[in-house]
């Protein structure tokens, strides 16, 4: 899943980025409101972590701009403003969550993950599809009784497809939401990675193929036989 972080204070921005990457997200980060707004308009994200006091365009303006454009990407506001009025204003502007500085990174990560799950109508951190079980908190994947060992990239790919169960996901969407910038290489990379993932899943269980190809469209993950 891909996350956008817009925070001008460098040490905090870097810590948030690192925390989200280690939490399994692909992260884009910007230090100014103008750049952040550009990024939010031009790319698709599961969650946006947005500071309010930004140089250039401030966070609330970015949020209102997105909402006016009918962009429903979940947004969590982070701010030093802690009065009830300010929190209410932030939420009324369209934010999905509000976190007051200073905060624990663990809490931020948990809130971001919760918002990302809600984006795909998932209320629990455990995804079960047929005999496949993905524990998003502990990053454990099992199929039946068999625990599956995946690389970070393979896990992110599987998690993303699982969140979008029964939906066709295009290659470009996978590339955008799963791959860090430095991980993308040639255009075949998605196919190669998916192929490996399929093999690993097939080897782990008898339930039949979970990831299927829809030629010309993309890929779909569903319970066996669907």
């Amino acid at each position, binding site marked *: 899943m891909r996350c956008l972080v817009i925070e001008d204070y460098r*040490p905090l921005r870097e810590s948030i980025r690192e925390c989200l990457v280690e939490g399994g997200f692909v992260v884009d980060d910007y230090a100014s409101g103008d750049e952040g707004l550009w990024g939010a308009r031009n790319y698709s994200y599961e969650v946006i972590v947005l500071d309010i006091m930004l*140089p250039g365009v401030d966070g609330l303006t970015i949020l209102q701009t997105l909402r006016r454009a009918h962009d429903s990407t979940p947004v969590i506001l982070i701010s*030093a403003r802690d009065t009830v009025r300010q929190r209410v204003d932030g939420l009324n502007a369209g934010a999905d969550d509000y976190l007051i500085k200073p905060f624990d990174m663990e809490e931020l990560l948990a809130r971001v993950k919760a918002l990302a799950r809600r984006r795909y109508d998932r209320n629990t951190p455990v995804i079960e599809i047929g005999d496949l079980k993905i524990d998003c908190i502990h990053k454990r994947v099992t199929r039946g009784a068999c625990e599956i060992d995946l690389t970070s990239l393979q896990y992110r790919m599987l998690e993303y497809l699982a969140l979008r169960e029964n939906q066709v996901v295009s290659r470009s969407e996978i590339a955008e939401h799963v791959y860090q910038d430095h991980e993308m290489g040639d255009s075949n990379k998605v196919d190669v990675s998916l192929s490996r993932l399929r093999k690993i899943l097939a080897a782990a269980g008898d339930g039949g193929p979970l990831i299927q190809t829809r030629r010309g469209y993309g890929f779909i993950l569903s319970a066996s036989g669907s």
Partner: protein
Amino acid sequence: MSHPSLRRRLIWASTLLTALVVIGDKLSLYHEIQRSLRQDLDDQISHAAGLLTKSSELIPRGVIYEWEEAWKSGVGPKVSGLFQLWDLRTPGRKSSSPDLGTQDLPFLDGPLDRPTFQTVTGEDGTTLRVVGLRHLPFTNDFGVSAMKRAGQILQPQSYPQLVVYAEPTTGMEAKLVAARKQLLLSSIITLLSIWIAIELVTRWMFRPLALLTTRLQIRSDEDSLAPVDLPHDLPSEIIPLAHAFSDSLVRVETARKQEKDFAYGAAHQLRTPVAGLLGLLDQALSRPREPHDLLRRVGDARKIGREIRATIESLMRVARLKSSSADAFRVYQPAKILDEVTARQREQAQRTIHLALPPGPMKLTGDPEMFRVLVEVLIENAVRYSAGDTPVEIDLKQSGSQVILKVANQASVPVPDDRESLFQPFQRGAGVSVNLPGAGLGLALAKEAARDLGGSVEMSADDDQRVCLTVILEAPQTAN
């Protein structure tokens, strides 16, 4: 601790004073009534005595009392009253009224034809008002002729008489009792009326105070800074006090709000670097890290710690500024201080700073440390927000009675249109990155310091982003 009630004191004092006046007045009235009644009685008995003197007739054989002659003869009217007549020429000779019986009245002798009064208590306990009147018997032509015929003309002067007349005072006493009752009743009614009137008036007059109290409480609950809305019917004597109280309240609450805002701003300013510090440490501890990686993270955390320390030091400067006392005031040379500060800034900032000082000596009166803080802040501010390698220009001069200090630089960030806002604590302008060191307190400090020195500071900027901070201080006439 109990507080005196103004209304109660007003009521009691007014009632007491009024009571004293009313009682005094009623007593005076009563005495007058009493005097008048007594006078009436005295007049009455004097008149009666006077009438009785007319019955003393001098005839050739001496003095006779006509009333007695008539009474004894049985043909005259019944004589009532209490009186006695003495023949002073013949001791022991007296004539008493039938009503007197065997009682004797006091022998009230006095000057001729001048009544003498006395109050006595009779044998039966009755109080009597008695008048005694020495007089001379009358004689007429008939009597003189008779005396001539008898061969001896008697002279009335040789036959002085004394009439003593008495009248019970019961009638007068009854009237006095009635008068007393009446006066007492009227006093009570008067006092009661006055007390009720005072009670009602004071309640009416104090009602606006209760309303004022309620409005103050509401205002306090709402945490408002607006002046208190005074009731329109507040007594005029209290209006100046109410206005003064309202003004003081606004000043105190404004100062309290400023302090609260300052504390809030300080906490707010520290939140982001603290969040950065915690984030760094959270990440450093979230999983096992390589030593060099851990070292890097700890170094970053220390850097943030220093930023926080610098912010706290700025806050302490502001606090110290607010507590500076008049004891620090003395004559000082601003050029000398400016020169020292500029030299130090040149070393630390490694930026070109041009300083123009006046040719002759210049002196100011005030707190030299305050002036030092002011120039330090202005120069640090200019250095921090200067673009590229552009120099900072400082100029100190005297113009008439004013000392003018200018600190100019080419700004590295956009200068907001609302420049006055930059002099508020924690305001750095919308274009300033939070990564730039500083807490947004510099210009607020400068403004506070300039004001404490009796001057002012203003910011001007041109279209090319050239910013100039101008401080104007008053130079004492005698110092230079």
